C-alpha cells in the first residue's frame, strides 16, 4: 500500500513495479541491466528526499505527462519513492491550508529538499503577471529556492522560458536559471518532456547519490546529448535526398524525411526518436509531422514550424568530392601590399634615374 498524503491517486505498488521502473530507467540512462537491482534497492529504501513542486507560468502538461506514464503506473511508484511535500495539482488541500503546508515543509526539511519548478517566471512589471497566494512567482521562487538543496526545472518553460517567452515575450518570461544563480540546477526541457527523462534523473540521484552528467545548459546528457536528427528513423531519406514537400504528397505517404516541411530535428537535442512517448512509443516525425524543436530554446516557439532548420553538419554520405575542387588562395593584404611596394619602388627608381639622365647628348 502506498502511504499517500492527501493525494487523489491511490494504487497498489509492489516489487514488480519497482523492477519494471528500474529496467526502464536503466534503458533510458543507457546503463547495463546489471544496474537494475541497484535501482530497485534504492527505490525501496525508506529514507526519501523531500520534494517541493512549484508551478508558475505553465499548462501543467509536465505533471500530466508524468501522471500519464504507464507500465507500471509510475506516478504512484514515484510518489512512494519521494516525499512530495507540496504540489498544487495533486494535493487535495487549497488556500491557506496548503500555504501553511508549504512553509511547514520548508522549515522541516530546511537545506535538504529538492525544488522542482514547472513553468516560466515572469519578470516584467515586478513579476505581477503571475501571483499565487498574494505573492509574485518571482518572490515565491526566490523564497523557496533559498533553502533548497537542488533545483530541477521540468519542461521548456522552467528551463528557458518556453511558450510564454515566445516573441514579443510581453511578460518577460524566463527560465529558473535566469533568476537563481547559486544552486545546482538540472533542466529537463521539452513540451512536455518524456516523463522518463525526469524519472531517470531522479532515480540516478537516489541510487548513486549524484546527478547524471549534465551539458552546459544543465541538461542530462543521456537524454539531451545528441541531435534528434542523428537518431531519427527517417535519416536515411534525408541523406539520400528523399523529402516530403507537402502534407499528403507521395513523399509524405512514403514516409520520407520531413526536413523540407520544417522539421527542426537537425537543430534540436533530445531523445524523442529513441524512447518516444505513450504506450506506442510514438513521436511527431513518426506520425508524419515535423519536429518543431520544443526542447531547444531559440528554436521551439521561436522559429516558425515550417521554416527550414539549420543543419550544423552535412551527413557524410551526402558529401562527395566535386569534379573540380577550386583551390583558391585569397591573397593576403600584406602580400598584395608588398608586391605593390616592390613594383612601385622599381618604377619610381627607373623614373627617377631617367629624369637625372641628360635628355640629349651633350655637345
Amino acid at each position, binding site marked *: 500500500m502506498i502511504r499517500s498524503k492527501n493525494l487523489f491517486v491511490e494504487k497498489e505498488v509492489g516489487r514488480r513495479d519497482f523492477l519494471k521502473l528500474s529496467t526502464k530507467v536503466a534503458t533510458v540512462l543507457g546503463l547495463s541491466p546489471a544496474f537494475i537491482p541497484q535501482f530497485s534497492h534504492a527505490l525501496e529504501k525508506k529514507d526519501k528526499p523531500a520534494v517541493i513542486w512549484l508551478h508558475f507560468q505553465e499548462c501543467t502538461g509536465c505533471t500530466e505527462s508524468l501522471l500519464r506514464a504507464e507500465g507500471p503506473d509510475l506516478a504512484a511508484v514515484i510518489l512512494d519513492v519521494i516525499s512530495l511535500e507540496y504540489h498544487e495539482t495533486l494535493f487535495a488541500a487549497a488556500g491557506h491550508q496548503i500555504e501553511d503546508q508549504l512553509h511547514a515543509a520548508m522549515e522541516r526539511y530546511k537545506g535538504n529538499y529538492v525544488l522542482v519548478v514547472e513553468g516560466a517566471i515572469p519578470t516584467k512589471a515586478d513579476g505581477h503577471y503571475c501571483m499565487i497566494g498574494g505573492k509574485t512567482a518571482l518572490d515565491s521562487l526566490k523564497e523557496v529556492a533559498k533553502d533548497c538543496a537542488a533545483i530541477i526545472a521540468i519542461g521548456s518553460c522552467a528551463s528557458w522560458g518556453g511558450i510564454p517567452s515566445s516573441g514579443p515575450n510581453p511578460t518577460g518570461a524566463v527560465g529558473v536559471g535566469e533568476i537563481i544563480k547559486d544552486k545546482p540546477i538540472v533542466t529537463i526541457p521539452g513540451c512536455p518532456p518524456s516523463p522518463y527523462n525526469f524519472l531517470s534523473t531522479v532515480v540516478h540521484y537516489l541510487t548513486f547519490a549524484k546527478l547524471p552528467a549534465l551539458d552546459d545548459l544543465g541538461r542530462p546528457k543521456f537524454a539531451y546529448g545528441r541531435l534528434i536528427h542523428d537518431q531519427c528513423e527517417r535519416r536515411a531519406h534525408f541523406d539520400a535526398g528523399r523529402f516530403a514537400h507537402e502534407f499528403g504528397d507521395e513523399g509524405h505517404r512514403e514516409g520520407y524525411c520531413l526536413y523540407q516541411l520544417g522539421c527542426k530535428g537537425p537543430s534540436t537535442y533530445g531523445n524523442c526518436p529513441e524512447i518516444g512517448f505513450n504506450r506506442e512509443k510514438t513521436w511527431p516525425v513518426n506520425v508524419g509531422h515535423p519536429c518543431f524543436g520544443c526542447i531547444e530554446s531559440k528554436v521551439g516557439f521561436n522559429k516558425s514550424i515550417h521554416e527550414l532548420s539549420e543543419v550544423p553538419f552535412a551527413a557524410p554520405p551526402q558529401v562527395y*568530392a566535386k569534379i573540380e*575542387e577550386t583551390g583558391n588562395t585569397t591573397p593576403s593584404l600584406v602580400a598584395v601590399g608588398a608586391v605593390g611596394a616592390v613594383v612601385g619602388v622599381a618604377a619610381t627608381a627607373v623614373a627617377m634615374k631617367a629624369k637625372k639622365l641628360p635628355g640629349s647628348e651633350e655637345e
Partner: protein
Amino acid sequence: MKIKRRNFLKGIAGAGVGVAASPLLTGKALASEVKKLKPNHVGMLYDATKCIGCKSCEVACKKANNMPIEYDPAGIYDAPRDLSEKTLNIIKLYKGPEGTSFVKRQCMHCVDPNCVSGCPTSALNKTENGIVTYDKDACCGCRYCQMNCPFNIPKFEFNDFYGEIKKCELCRTTSLIKDGQPACTAACPTGAVIFGTVTLLLAEAKQRLKDSPGDYIDHVYGEFEGGGTSVLYLSKIPFEKLGLPNLPDYSQASLSEGIQHTLYQGLIAPAVIYAGLAAIAFKNRSGKEED
C-alpha cells in the same frame, strides 16, 4: 676575312632558326622514341555506368597503402575532397543536365607519360609492365611532374620539411603482390573498375560499346588521349564534364622530346656550334693582340 665570318655567322643563325622552326613547318613531333603500348602492360577499366559511388575503393586504397585519414574542410571524418598527398584514389560526383555519374580519379599510368619525360633525376619511371612508379631516393622535389601532368595527379607533401610526391602506383608493392590486383579493383562490389592487361581491357571496353550502344558515349577514353593511358574510361556523360580533359592524340612528351633530340641528340649540334664559335673567338683574339 670579315665577309667570310659574316657569312659563317649567318649560316649558323639560319641553321639554328631553321632547326627550331621545323616543328612549326611539319606540325608534328620529330619523335625519335615515342613510347608505345606493350601487350604485357597492365591497367584498369573504369565503367562509370556501373559505379554506385560506395567509395569502397577509397577505403581499400587507404588501408592497403597505409594512407592517413583526411578530413573535409567542414571537419567531416574520412571525406577527402580531392586527390592529395593522403588520398591516392578518389570518387567524384557529377550532377548536371545530362544526368548523374560518379568518376574514379587516380594516376592514369599514361603510355608516354609527361612526368617520366620531364623528371630530371629519373624519380618517375615507366616499368616493364607499364606502371608509372616513383622513387623517393631519386626525387629532388622540383615538382615539375605536378606542373606537366595533364591530369594533375602527382601531389606533393608541402607541409613536410622533406616531402615526397604521392600518387597511385597500382599497389605494386602491396595488393598487386598479395592479391594479384590493386586494392581498388579487388574491393569494387559492382565490377565498375577492373584490372587486367590494357589490350584485353580495351577489347572488353569496345565489346561493351558494341553490345549496349545506348548506354554509353561511343568512345573509350584513354585509347588515344595524350598518347594513350593504361586506365581506360567508359561513360554515359561526356568525359570532359567528368573532369577528363580533351587531349590531342599525341603525348606532349613526344613533342617536347622530339625537339629536344633534334637540337641536342648526341650533343652534336652544340659541339659543332661550339667549335665554330671557339674558332672565331680565337681568330679575333689573334687580331686583337696587335692592339
